[in-house]
């Protein structure tokens, strides 16, 4: 049996999907999360089924990429039953999509989610009456706590046995305006709204959206988030990961080292220097970097991001940033992909799909490559700068941020086309459900362990081999005068660039064993963050905007990177 899950964006589809498949999908509280199509297998009381999570859509007739994909699958896909989810807080708008579905005359079950929140806000819905009017099954649920899922299970089983379900025989008008009239009729019969005093979350919504208070609040949230990420990241490193590594792992490894008599093997395994971050040993540095330096930051970043996502703050943030970001040529919603890109470029680029025009995608994609270092890079930059005054870390990121604003200005002038206008639903706040939050965190950390760790270990090993064979030295000597005189970059940078291209988060890591001075660290970090994105993200962006546009973006980025590396090194030469 094949099921599809449909509904407006942000109705809790992914939570239902997670439930039906036994927790395997990512869900968040902002429109547009499910841009790629997730599918899974489920089993309820002996009934096996395949299930596809269709991207959220407001209409079968919509313009966005996600809506077009959704519409195509719903109209032409091969499935037995549609499970359509609606949000009790906004039954009217959800009914428009529901009516469009009903007019297709396919088997469908309706779930009405978030009943708890709606009731708290004074929305009372008569589900039985709604069922009678629509003539299809309507099940109230609270997906976050699993309330109502037993009824859903039963319906799915019943449908599996009988292969039959009542089809709606309502006369559904063609035009949207006529549909709204019908919806008005239905709503007046099934929904009563009583006035309630705003609860805490509603008050918070008001404070965090009214410009006077919302703008300072947004700055506090952003600053506090970065502080919290650093606090949690450093805390984990200093109290748990570093002590574990140095007190238990290192002595053990050093003991083993003593037994290895073959010098070549020793060199390959432990490099010229086996102390982590001082040599390129695959056994020590190769594990120290991903697990001790980077993992704690990945954990901290996604913990904080997941919380902001689930509570529903990100759409508000994009509205608040819209006025400012419009001035520099960014559509307000572009801040979401950029924020995602601060974690890892790959999900960041996927989320570019929520942007509508090509111009938006090009600008946001280019900026993401240029000035949004992914969290492993950020962690390493903070780590290598941690022995100096905190002011230098600040200077580094401030410089990066300023270059981003300048680049955005430039791109807005260069890139042809129109930027789209903000048009986004601002969802009510939800209290995050810990189970969902940690499930998502777990998925993201697994993703990191699976993708990044082998690349970091491999990159370190690769450099070590180059180093042992003295190839590193030869390449470096060849390019040295160019890099050193103009850009203050260490001669070894050319080989690091090569590895960094394959996996960008590795690049800063590879700088550490070279014992650079402060100026050199700042300049090389800036260069390595901006010069080119990693191969994986390039390949994905190419799919989004095409090969030609892609090459322009890369050429633009490389030029900007070289130019501002030069400026940065010139400034630093004077002051440090």
């Amino acid at each position, binding site marked *: 049996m094949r099921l599809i899950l449909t509904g407006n964006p942000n109705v809790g589809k992914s939570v239902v999907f997670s439930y039906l498949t036994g927790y395997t999908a990512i869900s968040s509280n902002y429109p547009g999360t499910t841009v790629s199509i997730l599918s899974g297998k489920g089993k309820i009381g002996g009934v096996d089924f395949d299930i596809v999570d269709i991207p959220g859509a*407001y*209409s079968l*007739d*919509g*313009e966005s990429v996600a809506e077009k994909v959704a519409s195509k699958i719903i109209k032409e896909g091969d499935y037995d039953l549609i499970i359509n989810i609606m949000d009790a*807080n*906004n*039954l*009217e*708008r959800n009914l*428009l999509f529901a009516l469009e579905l009903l007019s297709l005359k396919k088997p469908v079950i309706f779930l009405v989610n978030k009943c708890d929140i709606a009731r708290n806000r004074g*929305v009372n819905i008569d589900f039985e009456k709604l069922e009678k009017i629509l003539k299809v099954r309507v099940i109230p649920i609270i997906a976050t706590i699993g309330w109502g899922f037993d009824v859903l299970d039963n319906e799915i089983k019943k449908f599996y046995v009988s292969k039959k379900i009542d089809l709606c025989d309502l006369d559904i008008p063609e035009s*949207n*305006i006529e549909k*709204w009239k019908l919806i008005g009729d239905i709503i007046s019969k099934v929904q009563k*709204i009583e006035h309630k005093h705003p609860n805490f979350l509603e008050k918070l919504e008001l404070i965090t*959206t*009214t*410009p006077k208070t919302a703008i300072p609040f947004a700055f506090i949230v952003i600053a506090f988030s970065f502080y919290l990420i650093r606090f949690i990241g450093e805390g984990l490193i200093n109290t748990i990961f570093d002590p574990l590594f140095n007190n238990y792992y290192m002595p053990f490894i050093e003991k083993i080292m003593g037994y290895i008599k073959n010098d070549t093997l020793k060199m390959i395994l432990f490099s010229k220097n086996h102390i982590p971050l001082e040599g390129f040993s695959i056994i020590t540095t190769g594990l120290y970097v991903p697990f001790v330096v980077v993992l704690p930051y990945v954990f901290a970043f996604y913990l904080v991001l997941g919380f902001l996502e689930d509570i529903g703050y990100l*759409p508000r943030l994009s*509205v*608040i940033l*819209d*006025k400012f970001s*419009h001035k520099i040529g960014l*559509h*307000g919603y572009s801040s979401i992909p950029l924020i995602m890109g601060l974690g890892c470029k790959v999900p960041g680029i996927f989320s570019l799909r929520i942007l509508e025009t090509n111009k938006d995608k090009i600008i946001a994609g280019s900026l993401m490559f240029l000035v949004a270092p992914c969290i492993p890079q950020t962690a390493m930059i903070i780590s290598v700068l941690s022995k100096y005054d905190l002011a230098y870390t600040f200077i580094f990121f401030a410089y990066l941020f300023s270059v981003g604003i300048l680049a955005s200005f430039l791109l807005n002038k260069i890139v042809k086309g129109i930027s*789209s*206008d*903000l*048009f*986004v*639903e*601002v*969802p*009510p706040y939800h209290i995050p459900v810990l189970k969902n939050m940690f499930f998502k965190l777990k998925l993201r950390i697994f993703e990191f362990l699976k993708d990044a760790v082998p690349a970091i270990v491999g990159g370190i090993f690769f450099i070590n081999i180059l180093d042992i064979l003295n190839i590193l030295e030869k390449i470096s000597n060849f390019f040295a005068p160019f890099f050193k005189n103009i850009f203050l970059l260490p001669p070894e940078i050319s080989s690091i660039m090569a590895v960094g291209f394959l996996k960008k988060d590795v690049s800063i890591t590879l700088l550490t064993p070279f014992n650079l001075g402060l100026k050199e660290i700042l300049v090389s970090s800036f260069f390595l963050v901006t010069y080119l994105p990693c191969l994986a993200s390039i390949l994905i962006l190419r799919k989004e905007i095409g090969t030609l546009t892609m090459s322009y973006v890369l050429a633009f980025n490389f030029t900007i990177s070289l130019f501002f590396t030069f400026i940065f090194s010139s400034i630093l030469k004077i002051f440090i």
Partner: protein
Amino acid sequence: MEKNLLNAPIGKLKVKRISGGENLFKKLSVMGIYEGSVIEKKISYGSGPVIVKVGNSDIAIGRGMSAKIIVEEER
């Protein structure tokens, strides 16, 4: 003078017409903004976006699009 969503006062408004193409009309009507519908302007970011309440949900609408939604005050 005709008022649009951008320069209309905070409060309940009735949509008079959408001065834009078919696409804009479709996009807005899906969310419940069409000729004759009543919406509530809740928050304005000056020259930035406007937040309106349509039905039971809040929608942020950018400056350019807001200017194309012609409204009158609902009494």
